[in-house]
């Protein structure tokens, strides 16, 4: 009986190590926002927006993000309208009931790349390109995961069948439907920064961290004040508690 238990234990250990979804843990990178009080590097996020608009936006939406919220990255209204104008969307029906295209403006949300879900799937070999608004929050250790994934395309090991997909050591199951999207010469940065694969990926991840958590900087700044206040209050209450209870001993 005991031998059987031990045998089950050992077999299960081996089974476990094989059944774990064959994905590497993301590489840890020190982003500007990684530390508890860190901030979003605005210049990097702006470059990341450029990477998104010029590369990712052809397949991936950002539907929870409004153009107006780009003020949080330091753009003014005119600049935002110019960014939005690169996107077209269906207008509301006009007086004749026709639906015409118009340029997106300040108050619109990021325009989706496809008319509908099925169109998105059909254009991408049956795989729906997920919306990126919350991508960093929707994955464990999201920022490092997205960064590692975008840098993690390699040739498949010999004998590994990737089917219709591509090999990526950070993807669960190691097969990803998206071909490698960034190579390093994909954008010409407006601020003169020299583009490289790692530069583009870091900028994009900074931008996507902001789209996932536009509250991040406000939250951390407010948190610091709240914790400071509560810390003082706790001391004041503790001292009052000691003072009031000291009367009991007499």
């Amino acid at each position, binding site marked *: 009986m005991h031998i059987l*238990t031990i045998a*089950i*234990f050992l*077999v*299960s*250990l081996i*089974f*476990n190590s094989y*059944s774990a*979804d064959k994905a590497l843990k993301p590489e840890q990178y020190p982003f500007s926002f990684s530390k*508890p009080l860190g901030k979003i590097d605005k210049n990097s996020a702006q470059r990341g927006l450029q990477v998104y608009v010029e590369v990712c936006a052809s397949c991936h939406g950002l539907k*929870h*993000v*409004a153009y107006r*919220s780009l003020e949080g990255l330091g753009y003014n209204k005119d600049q935002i309208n110019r960014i939005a104008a690169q996107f077209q969307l269906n207008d509301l029906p006009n007086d004749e009931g026709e639906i015409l295209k118009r340029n997106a403006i300040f108050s619109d949300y990021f325009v989706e790349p496809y008319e509908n879900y099925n169109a998105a799937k059909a254009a991408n070999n049956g795989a729906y390109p*997920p919306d990126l*608004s*919350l991508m960093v*929050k*929707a*994955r*464990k250790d*999201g920022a490092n995961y997205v960064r590692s994934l975008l840098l993690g395309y390699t040739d498949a090991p010999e004998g590994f069948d990737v089917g219709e997909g591509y090999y990526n050591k950070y993807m*669960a199951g190691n097969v990803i439907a998206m071909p490698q999207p960034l190579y390093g010469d994909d954008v010409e940065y407006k601020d003169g920064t020299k583009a490289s694969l790692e530069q583009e990926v870091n900028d994009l991840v900074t931008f996507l961290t902001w789209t*996932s958590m*536009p*509250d991040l900087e406000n*939250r*951390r700044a*407010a*948190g*610091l004040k*709240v*914790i400071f206040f*509560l*810390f003082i*209050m*706790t001391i004041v*209450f*503790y001292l*009052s*508690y000691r003072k*009031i*209870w000291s009367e*009991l001993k007499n």
Partner: protein
Amino acid sequence: MSNLKKNERGILNWIDYRLPVISFLKHSAVDYPTPRNLNYWWNFGSLAGFFLLVQIITGVILSMHYTAHVDHAFNSIEHIMRNVNHGWLIRYIHMNGASFFFIVVYIHIFRGLYYGSYKAPRELLWWLGIIILLLMMATAFMGYVLPWGQMSFWGATVITNLFSAIPLIGDNITQWLWGGYSVDNPTLSRFYTLHFLLPFLIVGVVILHIVALHTHGSNNPLGIDKKGPQDSIPFHPFYTIKDLFGLSFALTIFFAVVFFAPDFLGHPDNYIPADPLKTPAHIVPEWYFLPFYAILRAIPDKLGGVIAMFSAIFVLFLLPWLDTSKVRSATFRPIYKILFWIFLLDTIILGWVGSKPAEGIYIIISRIATSYYFVHFLILLPLLGKFEKSRPLPESIGKPVLAE
């Protein structure tokens, strides 16, 4: 009757003569005689009440912006997070408030287990507490469904499917719960209604819990009854200030999580919109359900698992009679004290295996831990009361040292 006089002056007296709210508060929150030796573990009752209020207040605000429809629920949460003024703060408080409510209540329950607070004459007080726990679990489960993320949807699917294990009528009951043939819009909207309703039922049961508490007063670390006025002190200012200190300390930790790690206790998959065609690799409930989830999965039979899971809570109703020892506090029960810590460790192990996939060694661990959970209540405690030799009890709360 009001203990203030008819001819005394002042607005409060005028009110109190007609509606004795002032004397009620004075009786039950100011003068209320409380054992003088309560330790910090007695802070958690008022903390639980505080977190209930936080959940209700933030919940009501969230409900003003939330849309309970499968097409809009996920988006309306993002609307709250991005467009509503301080919406992110309200939602993060509500999300983490649920977790802290459970942390505080679990500590409160284990306090009761250690000091024998469930023993006569506090059996009904204990029962009301378990009813609060059950209502909390139902509320929290349905609340987790509302954002309509992947874990919302699949968690709801797994848990509602448990009812299909009931023989003969199981499938009918499940469809009745769903309001259809799968978890869908009718399920979401009824969960929203119930999620809004149940907290107010909890408030009602909390009031009964407090009435029962104040009938015989708080238990205390020595577990002996008050012998006279020298054993108690008025609730105010002694315990109001102690509770305020505890509250302030707890809030510091709470807000550290809310502001600096708001998603730490959640699951990343719930930021992916619900997709009925795509099952997540591992469906896990919120952390506070993990021990029960582990018990559910430890039993190879579906119906058996469901029965075991519910029994894990219902056995608590029997606890006042399963524990046959007359001595309340573990301080004077050398063996029970050890069993208490083993039991606590057992529940933590259950929580840990509950978060792991149900395969290999985890199944074995969960079966051993589940067995021990029930052995503790059904075998060890009834026997222990008969054989354990407890240490001598002190004579009174006021003079415990002179008891020897």
